[in-house]
């Protein structure tokens, strides 16, 4: 069994816990004792909230809408469609016709990259996330 210390993905308390992994699947979450946040405590979401990681409904491949329906596509096809449509819209309507909603659930690094993508690559400050909601 492998054990990895990480941070809870639910509320803003930021409890840390050890994920115990067997055969590539998470089997349990055990609270960290020696930190300065949760001191060995976890609520029910932290303790039992990991099944979704291995859920059968997880998306595994990119999807692209063709003739009205979402169909499986390769990563390169999906990136290609996005790059092409963004470039096209940018040319016709300017960068401010493109916007992004970032995620309060994703990491700092990912939020940094998405705002950089919008600001430095697309050329707009149209980036927000659901802090207000």
């Amino acid at each position: 069994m492998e054990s990895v210390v990480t941070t809870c993905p639910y509320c803003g308390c930021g409890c840390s816990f050890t994920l115990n992994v067997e055969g590539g699947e998470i089997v349990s979450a055990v609270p960290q004792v020696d930190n300065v946040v949760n001191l060995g405590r976890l609520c029910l979401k932290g303790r039992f909230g990991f099944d979704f990681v291995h859920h059968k409904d997880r998306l595994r491949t990119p999807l692209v809408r063709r003739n009205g329906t979402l169909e499986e596509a390769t990563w390169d096809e999906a990136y290609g469609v996005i790059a092409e449509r963004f470039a096209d819209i940018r040319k016709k309507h300017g960068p401010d016709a493109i916007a992004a909603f970032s995620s309060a659930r994703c990491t700092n690094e990912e939020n940094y990259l998405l705002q950089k993508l919008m600001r430095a690559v697309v050329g707009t400050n149209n980036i927000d996330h659901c802090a207000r909601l």
Partner: protein
Amino acid sequence: MTNAILELKEFTVRDAIFAIGTNATDCHPLIGVYMLEAHARGTKLIVADPRRTELAKHADIWLRHRPGTDVALLNGMMHVILTESLMDRDFIAARTENFDALRETVLAYPPERASAITHVPADKIAAAARMFARAENAATYYTMGITQHVTGVDNVLSVSNLALLTGNLGKPKAGVNPLRGQNNVQGACDMGALPNVFPAYQPVTDDKIREKFEKAWGVPLSGKPGLTIPDVLHGLEHGSVKALFIFGENPMRSDPDINHVKHCMENVDFSPLKEARFIVVQDLFLTETAEIADVVLPGASFAEKDGTFSNTERRVQRVRQAVAPVGKPDWLILTELMRAMGTKADYAGPEAVFDEMRTLAPSYAGISYARLEQGGIPWPCPNESHPGTPILHVGKCNRGPGLFCAVDFKPPAENPDESYPLILTTGRVAAHYHTGTMTRRCWGLDAAHPEESLEIHPEDAARLGIAHDDPIRVTTRRGTLTTKANVTTRVPVGTTFISFHFSETPGNILTNSAADPISKTPEYKVCAVRVERARA
């Protein structure tokens, strides 16, 4: 938060906790438990909440105010503090500005007037004011109960006025402490996922700042502040926004007035002049929002990637990969997309991204992955020998002297009337999280709270001929849904409550998108509603 979570372990009988508009035991269970433990040790607990939450049950004083009347309640408390000379004169003289304006406004809210607006007995308002002002240290905690109103900014200013008036800022066991609802709201703000600021709240309109980022990123940048979420939806509806990238969000369930959101986002074009909108969604599941997208990218869960989250006390902590990703980690997807769009984006991994970020974000400059191995660090942390900052505003407020901002009470945007006679307020339950895409897929959590119901007071239910568990129809000016009645005194007479975790009964089909003019936060906490028994 201005202060640290663990401070709650140090509260004594001489201190007070004021929880206003925060159902902490359900929404921030760790902090809720620390509050109850402090209360068990004798710390005073004052709770202001229309609903009888766990905290309200334990409170020394429970102020059951009508939803949307927080400013009147807080002004009433401050009236008592002023007229009974319970304020901190030294603190006000040394560390604040604009006290006279505050006094003038607040003196118009004697407890009797506050009581008429809030429906809280005047003597309770006075007792709460005295308990708060007489405590050696008093800390205020709030969440969406304060911010999700058309007067959200006014509410926050009032909370801050109360802290300044009693000298409860810039010291341990005090402060103004918003609890962040999602794991990394703090981090997303810190990283500049906001339309007006780069990482670390550096304004896009500041030429010097923009120059710094232009040099680092090697491209010219726009100095025009971008659009907020409601502005973007409006832009989609009216054709000024043509493309939207949605990263790990489910606005078709989380945003107010879902029918309107759907109308804005759907790729239906009624006008032959308008071209179709283009929507990209990156998420774990085919959410209601992903279903209407043109391209869907499979995202990775927290357990499948490395990185950092910043919690509600600004503490930056490591996220570590435990299992192989089903698809690809999101940081990799974003860099690959940047390359597909023709930009250089070569990062060896999340640590390289973090290191680039901290050269540009002064408050994160001293935090490194190596240091985080020893445990989380609260920003500001300007250099690598700096220990981090658990309490903000020590000695002086960040903006200089603390500024009193006098505010008057304004009613909610939509109030009960003949057709919609009850108030509807929304929130979360302990077992679930946000739109339920994750927790509804955890059997232990879904079993703990498998279905939605509408909380309604026995008196209202009796008048409407509704019994516990009856099927009911709930209608606002924006939408309608059917659910079950949960007849309970948890809500006061005249007020009902629903969560927004369930796709089958999406609470946000009902809510009002009227928003605070400054923060743009919609008024999830109050709208007018009609409840009827549904025919089975």
